[in-house]
Every structure is written in structure tokens, then in C-alpha cells.
């Protein structure tokens, strides 16, 4: 942005002079390079041309001399730095003194009319305003784009006058109908651009639609004329029609895509009532849905579908209804869980299996394609995680770039004034709240600016620190307490299972229902502790609301992550090694079922929270407390709930490939429930909400603790936990990771020529050295990126200095112009008085 500006900012003295020179002394014309002129605005030229017309020939000569003098100086002092600048200034002044001109008096006081004219036509003041300026600006833009694209149409397609040439720069503006010629050139340039670029340019032009249409018509006419002149060959005519048809179908495709986007209407209604803050929650939810759809497409195509086509055995457990809650029972032996998947190569019977991943299709039978299930399982899960990670990191970097610009601005007040109004809000009451908010914020900012930091007393600070300390202690203690509680409770459940599995008299339904206790306990904790944190938060006073929000997020995150950590320990450290002692044949199935139960419980408690926390609380406060205020939608907490659910889903993909579907269904329901609850019960948030920064933080949280944690767990499971010996695709292997090695061995046995591949596998995949090298390269890339950003920052500060300097130059030049006029005026008066005395 800044560079852009530096380019468009007015007149470094150098180019200005060379420009004027082009009018006044044509001899030098040949010396100039076209690059000098590009940034210059023609209005100067015009003005100076007027000057020379106005005055007598002598004055023009004088001006010319003056200009050339100036020009020499400016060329000598091209790099703008302090002392030279000063020097030029002085010299310029002395020039002025010796120059005396004879010219007609120019009317006006203060700034002369010409000075004003120049001022008003400077690029900085005409960008986006003056029609001529816009057209010439876009003319340059299109030209640049065309050069970059190296467009196809060769030069002979144009009429000679429309060919781009260096000469035309010198000529522009000499004529009085400059705008017309500029427009013509713009039309030419546009016509030579490819269609998509042309449309983009047209759309981006700050002209009214009527004018754009006119330009477009001109372009179209021209194109037609050229086409008809050229006597199209059949082939290119066909091409032309194909292009037109393609464009039409593109448009209809676009409008179709537009109509596909889900929830458009609802989202817009929410943003109209609550602004960008609440909207960001729903957008986040939508992003999560997309992640899960992606995950499901991958697992569905490469795991579920091939296995569903080849069912290994039929297990008929009757459906009791409790399965929906526990995920066990008749669900256990279906494609839902890991244990159902085969450990052999699926024979080729239908077409589905043929088109697997490259890695997973193999030719071990050498006559036909077949589907190696263990390998497919391994690579599908691995690739799904990898691609999700890449997408997340990419979107993270994008939002980072958007919300934390390279240079922080120091003009907070101006920014507040111009960009704090949330234009999306259109509800009357919300608008009222927003005005009040902006008022208070501005007042606070003013207070801050006027009195800066008032040193608070030691006692006060100590008290505040104490309060913070107490608050943090309460939070950490309660979190630790809950962690310990969950730890011992899960141990108790585990022991209970160990004792009971031999006991045949226990009702199996009861047994399954018992499994629901752990998820319920965890969900209750997840529901109640954030409320406690909120209470503690009221006790504290924070200077800025953003710090308050960050602290709240940090505490909630701490709780959720520690819960998940304990659970992972329970599953991977306790259940997995001794699964036989609790009567399981397949611990992976059990973990998958547990995760299903957790997801479901999370959903049920979200429902309860919405019902009690929002609906009933609203009714209570309206009917009983007679308060007019509705509860405020707590964005941070709700987003963290979503992140928690997503972590569960990611953890569970390995054990239950269909889990993303459950998560998608859950998210859909949550969307509609939260949407109606927000509409019904909540009011616009009172606190200012930095939507773009918060979105960045949420995406980061989704990436760093959530996805990273899940993938660490999954990798650990694959790497070093022995899978169940009687079920699942990896039943004969020591670890899941061995699947690749196993396959390599088979491959080597089948055709020995491929032994290089297996050696490569041993060296590259199993050797940790290459892992380190990869990590090292990654770190180096990050380092380089940060260096580049640093460099950009430096360049920006340099450019800002330059802008300031050029602003001074501008002032100096204008003063200069003004004094030249004055002198001429005086000289004219003198002349007149001489005449009259004569």
C-alpha cells in the first residue's frame, strides 16, 4: 500500500522538470527515458503550456531558462537527502532573485489562480476523483498489466495510431482534447487485454456504471471491427464463438456456485443484527463443517466405501436404541469402527477399488489391481492429517497477514473514527448500542492521550496483583482438581470394568449405560468450570477488554486441553496395553466408541447450555428480575467449545473413520440451534470486538493445540502402540507404522528389482536423521520469511520518510511557483506604469 502511494504521490522534482522541458525545449526530447514520465501527471504540462501561451515569446524563453537551470540542479541532486535538498532550495531562491520577467499581471490574491489550479490537479488530490485522472491512471495500469502478460495479439493487429509507443507519452496532453485521447488509449489497452483481466479492470474502476458501459461498448465495437476487418478464418471464428460460449457458461456457473453457499441468508441476518463479532462464530462453525466434509470425503472414498463393498462377516446384534447414545452394541461391528476393517488385500471385484491412492494401489498379485487395506488405512489417515494441517497453516498465515499488518499504525483515533462503524449492523437497537460504544471508546482514548499514564500507587497495584493472583490460583486449583477427579474416576471405571467383565449376571444394557458416566462427568466439568471462570473474571479489573478476553480464552483453553490430555492418557496408557483384562477383543473399537460418546455428550450439553444458560436465563431475567437487558452471546467460550469438539473428532478419525459424519451432523444441528437461540435470546455485545484479530486467534488455536495435539496422539498410536491382535487392518503387526515396511518386504519378495525402493524406505523413512533435516529446512524457511518481513518493514519506514520529504518538496515548489507569479505581476505593473509615464 505504502509503496503504491509513494509512486502515486506527487512530483518528485526531477520528473516534473523533465516534463516541462518536453514542452519548452524539444531539443532534449531524445535524452529522456520513458520510465521517467510514467508517474507524471499531465496537468502540469498543460499548465505550463498555458503559461507559454499566455506570455510573450520572451517570457517563455525566460521560463525555459529557469526551467533548465532548475532541471540541472535537480538532476545533480537526484537522491533526496537533507543537505543537498537545502542546497537546492537556496540555489533556487537565488535563481528567483536574478530572474525578472515581463508578463501580463495575473489576477488573484494569496494563491494565484494558476497555483490553485496546479494544486487541485495534483495526483494526490485527483486520484479517484477527477475523471481524466482516473482514466489516465487506469490507462497506465492496463498498460502495465499488458506488458506483464505479454498479450497474444501481435502488433500488426492494431491501427498504427493505437500502437503503444514511447512517442505517445511525449505527445499526450499537448492537445486540448487530452481526455478523449486518453480514453481512446484506455479503450485500446483494454481491448488488448484478455477477457478476464478486462472485466476485472472494468469492475475495479471508480467510474459510474454508465461510463463503464460506454467504455465497454467502445471496446466491443473495436473488437468487432477488427474481427470483421481481418476476414476471420473459419478456425479463429470458431475460437471466438467458443470463447463467448465459455464466458456465458462461466457466468452461469458463477451464479450457480453463489446459490450453493449454505446459510447465506441466515448469516447475513445475524450480521445485520449483531455485527461482525457474532458472525465470526458462525463463520468459524462453517469452516469446521468444511474441514469435516473434507475429512469424510477422504476416509469415505478410500476406507469406508471399499470396505463396505466387501463386508467380511455378518454380525447380527439386534438394534436396541441405546446404540445411538453409546455407539456400542449393534454399531460395534460395522464400518463405523476400526475393528471392522480387513487386514488383507481386497480382491478386485468391482471398479471402486481400482482408483485408490497411488500409494495404496499395488500390484502384488501382478495380474490385477487390488486394494491393500492396511496400507490404505495408514496412508489415508496420514494424508488426511497432512492436508488438513497444510490448509490450516495456510489459512492461518493468511489471516495473520490480514490482521497484523506489517507496520502498526499510530493513528488510532483516526482509524477509530473511520473504520469502527460496523456497516453490517442494520438493526435499530444495535445501531444505538454501537453509537454509544464508539462514544465511550473515543472518550477513553482521549483520556488516555491527554493524561497519558497516571502512576497508580504502590498499594493499589499490589491490591490488583493480589486479586489477579487469587483469581489465577482459583482457576488453576479448580482445573487441577477436576483433572485429578477425572483421573481417579477413569481409573475407578477401568477397575470396575476389570472386575465386572467376568461377571456374566450383569445386564449388558446396564453395562453399556455405565460407559456413559465418564463422558457425562467430563461434559459437566466443561460446562460448569467456565461459569466459575466467568465469576472469577468479574472479580478482576483489566485495563483493556482485549486482555480480559485473552485471559478468559487462556483459562478455558487450559481446562479443555488438560481434560483431553487426561483422557488420552486414559485411553492410550491404560486401556490400550491391558485391553484383555477388561474383556475387550479390540481396544481401538472401544476408544472409538468412547470418542463417539464424548462427541454426543458434548452436543447434548451444548443443547442444555443453550436451553438453560440462554433461554431460561433470559426468561428469568425478563420476568423475575424485570431487567431489560438480554444476555450477551459469549463468543470466546462458544468457539472454544467448537474447538474442543473438533479435537475429539480429529482424535477419533483413526479409530472410527465415520466420526466426521457424526461431527458434521452435530455441527449442523448446533448451527441452527445457536442461530435461533441468538436471535431469540441475545443482544448485540457491548464490548468492542476486534473481529479480524479474534478470527486469527481462533484459527491459530484450532491449529496449534487442537490439530497438533490430535496428530501427536495419532502418530504416537501409530508409532509405538501395539494394535489389537484379533481385529482391524493391523492385527498381525507390532505397530501400525510397520504396515509400510511389511508391504515393502512383500514387494521386494515379488519383484527383486524393486529392492532399491525398499532400501530407500529403510533409509529415508525409518532414519530419524532425515526427520531432523526436514525440520531444519522448515525452520530455515521460517527464518527467511521473518527476515523478509523485517526487510519490508525497513523499506516501508524509508518510504515513509521519502513521502514526508516529498511533501516538503511539494510545498517548496508551490511557494516557488507563487513567487514567480508575484514577480511577474510586479514586473507587469512596473511596465504599465512605465508605459503610462511615457
Amino acid at each position, binding site marked *: 500500500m505504502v509503496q503504491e502511494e509513494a509512486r502515486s504521490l506527487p512530483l518528485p522534482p526531477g520528473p516534473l522538470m523533465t516534463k516541462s522541458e518536453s514542452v519548452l525545449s524539444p531539443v532534449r526530447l531524445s535524452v529522456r527515458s520513458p520510465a521517467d514520465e510514467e508517474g507524471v501527471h499531465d496537468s502540469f504540462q498543460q499548465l505550463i503550456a498555458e503559461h507559454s501561451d499566455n506570455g510573450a515569446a520572451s517570457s517563455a524563453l525566460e521560463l525555459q531558462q529557469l526551467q533548465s537551470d532548475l532541471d540541472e540542479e535537480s538532476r545533480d541532486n537526484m537522491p533526496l537527502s537533507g543537505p543537498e535538498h537545502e542546497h537546492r532550495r537556496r540555489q533556487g531562491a537565488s535563481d528567483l532573485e536574478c530572474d525578472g520577467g515581463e508578463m501580463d499581471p495575473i489576477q488573484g490574491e494569496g494563491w494565484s489562480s494558476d497555483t490553485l489550479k496546479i494544486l487541485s490537479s495534483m495526483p494526490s488530490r485527483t486520484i479517484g476523483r477527477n475523471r481524466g485522472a482516473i482514466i489516465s491512471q487506469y490507462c497506465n495500469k492496463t498498460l502495465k498489466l499488458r506488458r506483464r502478460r505479454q498479450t497474444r495479439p501481435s502488433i500488426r493487429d492494431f491501427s498504427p495510431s493505437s500502437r503503444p509507443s514511447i512517442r505517445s507519452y511525449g505527445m499526450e496532453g499537448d492537445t486540448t482534447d487530452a481526455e478523449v485521447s486518453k480514453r481512446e488509449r484506455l479503450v485500446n489497452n483494454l481491448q488488448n487485454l484478455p477477457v478476464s483481466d478486462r472485466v476485472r479492470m472494468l469492475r475495479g474502476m471508480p467510474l459510474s456504471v454508465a461510463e463503464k458501459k460506454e467504455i465497454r461498448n467502445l471496446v466491443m465495437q473495436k473488437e468487432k471491427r477488427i474481427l470483421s476487418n481481418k476476414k476471420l478464418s473459419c478456425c479463429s471464428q470458431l475460437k471466438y464463438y467458443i470463447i463467448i460460449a465459455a464466458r456465458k457458461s462461466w457466468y452461469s456457473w458463477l451464479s450457480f456456485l453463489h446459490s450453493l453457499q449454505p446459510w447465506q441468508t441466515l448469516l447475513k441476518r445475524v450480521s445485520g443484527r449483531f455485527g461482525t463479532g457474532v458472525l465470526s462464530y458462525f463463520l468459524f462453525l462453517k469452516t469446521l463443517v468444511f474441514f469435516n466434509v473434507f475429512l469424510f470425503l477422504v476416509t469415505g472414498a478410500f476406507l469406508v466405501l471399499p470396505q463396505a463393498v466387501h463386508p467380511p462377516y455378518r454380525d447380527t446384534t439386534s438394534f436396541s436404541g441405546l446404540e445411538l447414545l453409546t455407539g456400542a452394541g449393534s454399531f460395534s461391528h460395522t464400518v463405523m469402527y476400526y475393528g471392522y476393517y480387513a487386514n488383507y488385500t481386497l480382491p478386485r471385484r468391482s471398479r471402486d477399488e481400482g482408483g485408490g491412492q497411488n500409494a495404496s494401489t499395488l500390484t502384488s498379485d501382478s495380474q490385477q489391481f487390488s486394494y491393500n487395506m492396511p496400507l490404505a488405512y495408514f496412508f489415508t489417515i496420514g494424508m488426511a492429517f497432512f492436508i488438513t494441517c497444510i490448509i490450516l497453516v495456510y489459512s492461518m498465515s493468511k489471516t495473520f497477514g490480514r490482521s497484523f499488518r506489517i507496520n502498526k499504525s499510530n493513528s488510532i483515533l483516526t482509524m477509530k*473514527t473511520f473504520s469502527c462503524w460496523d456497516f453490517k449492523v442494520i438493526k435499530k437497537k444495535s445501531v444505538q448500542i454501537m453509537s454509544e460504544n464508539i462514544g465511550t471508546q473515543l472518550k477513553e482514548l482521549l483520556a488516555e492521550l491527554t493524561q497519558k499514564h497516571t502512576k497508580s500507587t504502590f498499594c493499589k497495584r499490589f491490591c490488583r496483583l493480589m486479586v489477579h493472583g487469587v483469581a489465577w490460583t482459583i482457576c488453576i486449583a479448580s482445573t487441577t482438581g477436576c483433572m485429578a477427579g477425572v483421573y481417579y474416576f477413569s481409573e475407578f471405571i477401568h477397575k470396575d470394568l476389570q472386575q465386572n467383565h467376568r461377571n456374566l449376571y450383569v445386564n449388558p444394557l446396564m453395562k453399556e449405560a455405565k460407559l456413559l458416566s465418564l463422558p457425562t462427568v467430563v461434559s459437566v466439568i466443561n460446562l460448569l468450570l467456565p461459569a466459575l471462570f466467568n465469576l472469577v473474571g468479574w472479580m478482576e479489573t483489566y485495563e483493556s477488554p482485549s486482555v480480559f478476553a485473552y485471559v478468559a480464552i487462556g483459562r478455558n483453553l487450559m481446562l479443555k486441553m488438560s481434560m483431553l490430555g487426561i483422557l488420552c492418557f486414559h485411553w492410550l496408557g491404560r486401556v490400550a496395553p491391558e485391553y484383555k483384562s477388561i474383556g475387550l477383543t479390540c481396544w481401538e473399537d472401544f476408544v472409538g466408541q468412547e470418542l463417539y460418546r464424548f462427541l454426543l455428550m458434548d452436543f447434548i450439553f451444548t443443547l442444555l447450555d443453550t436451553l438453560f444458560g440462554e433461554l431460561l436465563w433470559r426468561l428469568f431475567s425478563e420476568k423475575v428480575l424485570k431487567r431489560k437487558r438480554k444476555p450477551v452471546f459469549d463468543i470466546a467460550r462458544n468457539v472454544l467449545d467448537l474447538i474442543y469438539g473438533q479435537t475429539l473428532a480429529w482424535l477419533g478419525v483413526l479409530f472410527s473413520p465415520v466420526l466426521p459424519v457424526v461431527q458434521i451432523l452435530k455441527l449442523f444441528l448446533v448451527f441452527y440451534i445457536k442461530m435461533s437461540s441468538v436471535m431469540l435470546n441475545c443482544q448485540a455485545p457491548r464490548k468492542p470486538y476486534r473481529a479480524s484479530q479474534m478470527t486469527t486467534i481462533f484459527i491459530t488455536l484450532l491449529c496449534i493445540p487442537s490439530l497438533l495435539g490430535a496428530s501427536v496422539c495419532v502418530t504416537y498410536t501409530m508409532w509405538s502402540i501395539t494394535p489389537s491382535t484379533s481385529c482391524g487392518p493391523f492385527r498381525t503387526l507390532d505397530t501400525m507404522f510397520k504396515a509400510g515396511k511389511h508391504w515393502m518386504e512383500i514387494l521386494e519378495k515379488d519383484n527383486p528389482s524393486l529392492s532399491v525402493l525398499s532400501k530407500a524406505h529403510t533409509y529415508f523413512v525409518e532414519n530419524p536423521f532425515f526427520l531432523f533435516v526436514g525440520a531444519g529446512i522448515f525452520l530455515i524457511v521460517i527464518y527467511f520469511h521473518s527476515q523478509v518481513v523485517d526487510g519490508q518493514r525497513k523499506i516501508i519506514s524509508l518510504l515513509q520518510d521519502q513521502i514526508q520529504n516529498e511533501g516538503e518538496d511539494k510545498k517548496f515548489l508551490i511557494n516557488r511557483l507563487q513567487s514567480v507569479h508575484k514577480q511577474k505581476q510586479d514586473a507587469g505593473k512596473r511596465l504599465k506604469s512605465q508605459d503610462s509615464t511615457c
Partner: protein
Amino acid sequence: MGNKQTTFTEEQLEAYQDCTFFTRKEILRLHARYRELAPHLVPLDYTNNPDIKVPMTLIVTMPELKENPFRERIVETFSEDGQGNLSFSDFIDMFSALCEASPRELKTIYAFKIYDFNRDNFICKEDLEKTLNKLTKGELTPEEVTLVCDKAIEEADLDGDNKLSFADFENMISKAPDFLRYRHLFGYVFIF
């Protein structure tokens, strides 16, 4: 279908599509909404480009604009005659420039125009005062308003002429991450 065909010719629709950020459906929808504002004035048939303008008083009753503190300025900025009377072209122009798809550059230009109340190509103190008063609806005292104006100009003025030129404005806006986010005035136009 026949209904849609008679509103615009194929060529007109294509021209609108090329010059705005809207799809064919949206353009027809916009026309319907334009017509809703003044059914007796605006014909259904636009194939011969009738020269009809809807006055500002009707335009600002649209739900998108009704509560916006800058509604009059927005409408004025986009009207060809500067009085706030919008022809259909101006109308569609307004929606296109402020919709979600339009680039930051374009929005910055129009935002500058909107904030420039006295149309002198600068945002000077008067403009800022008006902006503030509209934003806060009288929450600030006059002294506070002047103070904020002084400070704001001091902060954002790069070339030291005590008013904000477009270059200053653009520079300032480029550093505000929320600017773009908040400026999709008409993103949701098609529901209400």
C-alpha cells in the same frame, strides 16, 4: 422466465455483469428492489434505457440504509447529479462498489468520497466533526469532538497541510485490518 426476459436485453445484462460485481440473477433482483421503491415511477421494461431517477428520500428508506448514519452521504456520492437522485445505473453502482466482492481500493476511494462532506477533495476538520457527530449521535461534547478532530488530523496527516488528502486517507486505511471487513454494506442485500 418471460418476465425476466423483458426487463433487460441479453446485451444489457452482459454489460452490467461486466461492469459490476453481480451475477445476472442479482442484477434482476436489484432491479426488482429498485422498482419496489417507486413502482409507479420505474417501469418493468428497461430495454430502451429509460431516463428515470428515484429521489433520495425514497432510497434511504431501504432497510440497508435506514439506520446508517451516513445514508444521505452515501446516496449523494453515488448519484450522478450530486443531489441524491439515483438512476438505475447509479443504484447498481452503489451496490456494486459496496458489496463484499469489490476490492479494497475501490472501497477506499468511495469511503473517502463519503466522508468528504463538503466535496473539496479533502477530509478537513469540518468533515471529521460531522463524521464524529453522526457516529456517536451526540455522545461527545463539542469540546471533545474538536479535540478528537485535532488529534486525528495530527496523527494521520503526512504532508502537513492540516487536512487529510486521499493519500493520507489511503495510508491510514491500509493499516486498519477491520476496515475491509466492516465495509461490506450491501453484502446481504438480497434477503430483506
